[in-house]
């Protein structure tokens, strides 16, 4: 089904992806037989009911977890053949995340949170780059604040700044507006798509929100662990 060149032209190629967990003597199939090809710069929405396997799919695609069956190629490299530290290196260089519940480190200031992925990459310009990004998301005045001192919308902006800090090739957004009111949510979504375009990032977005899904170029629907 796939010519070899696909592996290099497409940012993600997933083949026969499956994830099963065993509890006692029962095996539960969370995902099965997922095949995906995602091109560079594409924006994709993953939709589906609760428990349909959306989160499992993105943890596999992001290399946070390993599949039970199948392979994932990231820019032609087989993620499933790498160890945890190899995958961590890929994440630090090429992957960004935005979460529903922001997931900022409570002990760090907004600036330090944004600097973190840059520093993990060993970037000597971490501070000016992070400052620039915070200015870009409109938080120039709040850099020294800790997450507790920021509103939900502000926290998600910090998270956006952090996600784009390393200019990742691939960005995963997991229900980015789920914890925000609709007005703030809309602002965050606008900002997300703006940054996405500025950075030519591939966006993979998990959402329940159909209007949000409609803003993506393609939608992948999951039901009971299978692609429909």
């Amino acid at each position, binding site marked *: 089904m796939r010519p070899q060149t696909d592996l290099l032209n497409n940012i993600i190629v997933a083949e026969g992806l499956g994830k099963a967990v065993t509890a006692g003597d029962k095996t539960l199939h969370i995902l099965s037989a997922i095949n995906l090809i995602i091109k560079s710069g594409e924006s994709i929405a993953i939709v589906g009911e609760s428990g349909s396997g959306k*989160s499992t799919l*993105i*943890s596999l695609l*992001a290399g*946070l*977890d390993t599949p039970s069956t199948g392979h994932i190629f990231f820019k032609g490299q087989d993620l499933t053949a790498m160890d*945890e*530290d190899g995958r*961590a*290196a*890929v*994440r*630090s*260089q090429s*992957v960004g*995340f935005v*979460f529903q*519940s922001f*997931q900022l*480190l*409570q*002990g*760090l200031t907004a600036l330090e949170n944004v600097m*973190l*992925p840059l*520093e*993990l*990459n060993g970037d000597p310009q971490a501070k000016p780059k992070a400052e620039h990004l915070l200015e870009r998301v409109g938080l120039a005045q709040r850099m020294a604040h800790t997450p507790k001192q920021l509103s939900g919308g502000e926290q998600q902006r910090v998270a956006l700044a*952090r996600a784009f800090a390393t200019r990742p090739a691939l960005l995963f957004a*997991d229900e980015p507006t789920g914890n925000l009111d609709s007005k703030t949510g809309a602002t965050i979504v606008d900002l997300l798509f703006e940054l996405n375009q500025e950075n030519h990032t591939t966006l993979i977005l998990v959402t329940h929100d159909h209007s949000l899904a409609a803003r993506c170029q393609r939608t992948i629907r999951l039901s009971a662990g299978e692609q429909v």
Partner: protein
Amino acid sequence: MNRFSLALRLLWRDSRSGELTILLLALVIAVTSSTAIALFSDRLQRTMTNQTAEFLAADLVVTSSNTMPESWAEKSGQLHLARAQTVEFTSVLIEHEEMLLASIKAVTSNYPLRGQLKTTTADYAQETATPQGPPAGEVWVEKRILPALKLQLGDTLTVGELPLTVTRIITYEPDKQGDFYSFSPRVMMNAADLPATRIIQPGSHVHYFFQFIGATQDLLTFNQWLKPQLNPSQRLMDIHNDRPELGSALDRAERYLGLSSTLVIIISGVAIAMATRRYTERHFDNTALLRCLGCKQNEILWLYGSQFIVLGVVASGLGCLLGWFAQEGLFLLLKDLLPKRLAAPGLPAVMFGFAIGLAVLLGFALPPLLRLKQVSPLRVLRRELEPLPASAWLVYGLALGMVGLLVWQYTDDLPMTATLLGVGASGVLVLGLLVFALLTALRHLPLASLGWRFGLQGLARNRQASISQILAFSLTLVAMILSFTVRNDLLDNWQQQLPDNAPNHFALNIFPQQQAGFAEELAQQHISGSQFYPVVRGRLVEINNIPVQKRVSKDSQGDAATHRELSLTWTETLPDENKITDGQWWADGKAGWVSVEQKLADSLKIKIGDVLTFTVGSEQFTATVASLRSLRWDTMKPNFYMIFSKGTLDAFPSTYLTSFYLSRTEKNRLNALVKKYPNTTIMEVDAILQQFKTIITQLTQAINYLLYFALMAGFTVLFAAVYATLDSRIYEGALMRTLGANRGLLRKNQMVEFGALGFISGVVAVLVSEAVVFALYTRVMNMAYQPNFYVCLLVPVIGAVGVGVTGCWGLRGVLDKAPLTVLRKG
């Protein structure tokens, strides 16, 4: 459902959660150490109390430094009391070119009146009880005398000028007191032989024990008749009011051990409080649900309270069992200082350990646990609703009150307890602030390495927990460093600081008529000696007509000096190395003046012009303070607390005292000297130091033994802190990994965090202990202080490695959780 069975079931489910294991462990450690100490003290005390009559070897005993007045014998005869007498003194024995300082005891033939002597002619297995001491012409000796003097049973042993035959080995002596004195091995002879030894002459330093038995009423009459006649150097002991005191070394050991075990309890208590807090917080949701389902506040309290009681009972039971074994270890470590036969371990002491367990749990776990009662059922809907934190008054008040009671129990001294608590609490507060400042500074350290920065920030972020851990470790380390350093320095430094050729022998009990001859003998043998000082044994009893006991505080220098007889001397010229610090040295040569050593004067608040009353035997005399002197005790020349002007002490019999230096190769010259002057006691400084070394080594070993418990308790605090932050660590680890951090970096964070924790504890411990040692050496012991670089470097490194490795071990599973699962929950 039966509520108690619900509680048990919940407890069983929770028992696999980390914090209850920590709590159990901390409680077991606390109970083990306090049971061990309780059993140890109890056995010692009961050994003393139960066998008082046997320890006194009579029903009533008077100790005195003089022979018994005739009137006492008459009165006791009228009351039909049986009486015996023993005389104890030290003397140097020489046989086959070997010398030994022995403790001689001359007994009348009806000794002991109570209890029995046990002796053997072969080994301990064949000992026989003997109702009487040795007959005239014979000596019985402690076993170690024989190899030391190359003797065998049947050989002749010369005591003073009298040769006696060694016939039996003493294996047990009822009235032998387990103190320093007993370090000189025993030689027992018949009192009838005593005059022929020609050792005892007026002024000799000897202890008489007059022993009586009889009907209770007669003894009481005798007691009442006798008491008013006693002079301050005499002491009456009877089986109803007195028991022999533990040797002062053991007495102190008991107290230090008690205080060390309080340290164990405090540190365990911190771990218990931390673990309970985490337990409580983890149960807010369940409790809210139970409340929502209709559980009343008191039912909630009972539900959790009963679980803790079960836990307390299990832990205390286990601790008691372990404590039972642990006390055997203590007895083993201190065996040379203890009486040979001990009372069996008693159940009340075990119960005490058990009660301590429950009290510790109550004191440290109740305040956080009480918060569960306050959980609002509304939390089911609004998870952010948290009960108010436990009142600080309750938390610290309860804990401090409990620790106070314990310290009081161990010191039996209320002012000292208050001082210890006050100094302890403010010390902990100051140290806590210091560590707080240090952690704040660490947080702002501009470090390039991410691993270092995150590790140190982790430490600074959980500041409260970090401070508790650092204090727990550093206090334990301070106690360990102190007992280690003081033990080594005390002996080694002192010996090193002695100038070359400093006198290493003292000759005591030289009679006035022998003084010239003795000096000539020394000169002939080219032995350089110090001046000869006359010595009268006397006791300071009053200062300006007020009894001296009213001025002394327990355990002070003054206390020690007024509880025993002092060596009083007189001279016309101020001895070398004495400096007048106040008043003037007498120039007029009039009698009735005294010069007092500065530190003793400070301790007793003696000033120039004060009138001091002394007793010598049954006589009293007074002298006016003319000057205060500072002196150097470490010169090993004869030094005196009290020096009188000439003529003041003329009315009393005196002996002379001198000191001199002999190199190791010249020791055999002593033999000739001792043979010629058999009444003289030669004390070898090296031998005495060796004995002190043994005592101090055993004491510090016993204290260190308990400090290991404190160290274990410190680790439970560490684990409690680790468990308290486990959730947030798992979360942060997952987030960092999602952002691309590899495990190596996260492990480095952990290593840095815990390594720094251990390192800081070590540094704080070194700072505090060196400060204490400095104060102790310069203010109390008059020793030169030298920082111990070895300890200063080693302790922080050991702390860093030990705590670093243990902390990382406690967190070993944190990096294995799937990141997204963790983050989704958040």
